[in-house]
């Protein structure tokens, strides 16, 4: 009886979507534990403003992984509903960040005082980013353009739009309150982006639990026609997922611009779309749409940051960095492919059977 239960747990674990990101994270941690245990060291220090903060690789991962986790939330929904990915999030972050700075600084890019409350700037950025999300959504849902092609438009034009919003100037915000969102609130030693991500995760958790968004999104992703016949409106749901991603983008824009109190249109959040898509893939979600597991995607985001931080830690030659990342990614993605997992399950079953037979004999 005990044995049957154990076997059940084992296959269940393998079948569970959380298995791949958790396993990947454990492998990265194990590697660090063997190579250099100081990876796990966390120290309490003070920054130059005299505020306490925690230092250490794990904190760095929590800090920088959070913006990726926020994007992963939106990207998971878009992937599920439309069966494709939004590759314009990096450019959209540039737009959202540009809007925030434009409103905070007004027309003077070196203004000493904030021209508007931060919350107003953030809300306007949310509206703008949601509009651009809706634009992508309409192209995908109404005009039936492949998501990657549809979002290619904004991917190409986005950074120029961002630069145009600020007349090509690079505004700098001088107010210390603006640095809180990507840094620290005095007295709390944990980076704020982590809390922002936690809030976003909580919100999406509540939304998925108490509304039908998750069910409807998956229904549309699995079979659009069937969903339509059952009274759902696939067009509205698809656009809605892109708008939600837009909101995630605005949050990211706030964190990113807050980190340095300024923006560089051509490089801010560069290639972040690839990491966000990877987070979804790492979470074991089918990139062709349909069922999704939000937790797996969010964990996937932190796994990717753990990998990046590990590579930085080991001073991997700058030219080789993308190659290392690519190799790890290939292994992870192949391992999470359904075909490989089925084979693995079969092999485990065989081993189990072998054991049982031996015992019987």
């Amino acid at each position, binding site marked *: 009886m005990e044995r049957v239960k154990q076997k059940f747990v084992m296959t269940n674990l393998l079948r569970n979507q959380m298995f791949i990101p958790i396993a990947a994270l454990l492998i990265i941690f194990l590697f660090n534990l063997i190579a250099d245990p*100081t990876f796990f060291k966390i120290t309490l*220090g*003070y*920054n*130059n*403003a005299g505020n306490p*903060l925690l*230092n*250490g*690789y794990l904190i*760095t991962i929590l800090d*920088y992984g959070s913006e990726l986790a926020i994007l992963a939330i939106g990207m998971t929904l878009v992937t599920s509903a439309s069966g494709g990915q939004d590759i314009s999030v990096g450019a959209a972050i540039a737009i959202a960040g540009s809007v925030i700075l434009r409103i905070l600084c007004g027309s003077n890019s070196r203004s000493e005082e904030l021209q508007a409350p931060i919350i107003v700037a953030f809300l306007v950025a949310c509206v703008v980013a949601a509009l651009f999300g809706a634009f992508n959504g309409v192209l995908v849902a109404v005009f039936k353009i492949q998501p990657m092609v549809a979002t290619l438009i904004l991917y190409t034009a986005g*950074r*120029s739009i961002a*630069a145009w919003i600020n007349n*090509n*100037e*690079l505004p*700098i915000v001088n107010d210390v309150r603006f640095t809180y969102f990507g*840094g*620290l609130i005095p007295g709390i030693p944990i980076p704020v982006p982590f809390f922002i991500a936690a809030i976003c995760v909580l919100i999406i958790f509540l939304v998925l639990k108490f509304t039908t968004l998750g069910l409807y999104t998956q229904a549309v992703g699995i079979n659009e026609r069937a969903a339509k016949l059952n009274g759902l409106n696939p067009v509205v749901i698809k656009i809605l997922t892109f708008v939600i991603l837009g909101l995630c983008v605005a949050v990211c824009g706030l964190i*990113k611009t807050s*980190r*340095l109190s*300024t923006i*560089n*249109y*051509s*490089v*801010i959040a*560069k290639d972040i779309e690839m990491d966000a898509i990877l987070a979804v893939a790492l979470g074991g979600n089918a990139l062709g749409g349909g069922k999704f597991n939000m937790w797996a995607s969010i964990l996937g985001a932190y796994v990717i940051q753990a990998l*990046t*931080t590990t590579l*930085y*830690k080991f*001073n*991997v*030659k*700058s*030219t080789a*960095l993308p190659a290392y990342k690519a190799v790890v990614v290939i292994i992870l993605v192949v391992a999470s492919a359904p075909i490989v997992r089925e084979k693995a399950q079969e092999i485990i079953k065989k081993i189990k059977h072998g054991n049982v037979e031996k015992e019987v004999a």
Partner: protein
Amino acid sequence: MKKRVLAVLMAAAMVVGLTACGASGAASTDSASSGSSGGLIKVGIINNDPNESGYRTANDKDLKATFTEANGYEASFAYSLKNDEQIAAAQKFIQDGVDYLLLSAADTSGWDSVLKDAQDAGIKVILFDRTIDASEDLYVASIVSDMAQEGQTAVDWLASQNLPEYNIIHIQGVMGSAAQQGRTGALDAKVAAESNWNIVTQQTAEWNAETAQQIVQSQIDAGADFNVIYAENDDMAKGAVAALDAANISHGVDGDVIIMGFDCNKWALQELLDKNWNYDGQCNPFQSSYIDEIIKKLEAGQTISDKVIIMTEKGFDATTITEDDVNNYGI
């Protein structure tokens, strides 16, 4: 069979297209000569996207301020970060019959044939900011920054600080770009030559402040011992400083860590003035006065003595920089 016929037809169409291009090219020569007699000098300017960086924005502004109708020019601008689009723009300018073609090439190769066309059409080509891999006969002048010299100036300055030991975090730009190669080369050579110069880490942040912040953060987390940050542009230096600030490591004049940047953005020079940074190397974006001078000379029938003109570029030290420097050299 059908396919073959189609292929032949296509090939024929292309040949016709080519000859048509040749014809229009020849025609444009005429319009070019008639254009210059109208009084204004027609210049076609091909540049990189002004959004690319603060350097490019300043460069574009400078060109726009010089090549105005008031100064006797009729200027058209084309921007692209892609070589093929730039070449297409060059072909268009040749057909439009400009007198001068000013070019900051996105990529060093692939320019031979189009510049040959320009030469055949009697258009004079002047390169600015970036040089290309083509015969020197194809252009009349080239006004460039010497990136290797920029790196050398910075490294010489660093050597003059006489630190007992140099432990350097080296943050590089996009690998393979001229700026990265020049600025890295000088430092690499010095580190190889001196026993008390060490590289703590050498990684690319691809001109990105945030990536630089992460790289420095990871060195701080590892407890690495360093006293110099050599960032190949201002943005990355800023990112590095953000990481130092978070870890309460002092920097700048009388600080524990020397901060070095490049490009002389106004805000960066302000950091020098405030003694938060130590050094900023100039990358001069103001080529238009040089170009203007060359065109004036050529129009007057004079010859150009030096084909390659290397602009003078400064390096600023936080202990000697003045408010005027910030205003005059900040971009």
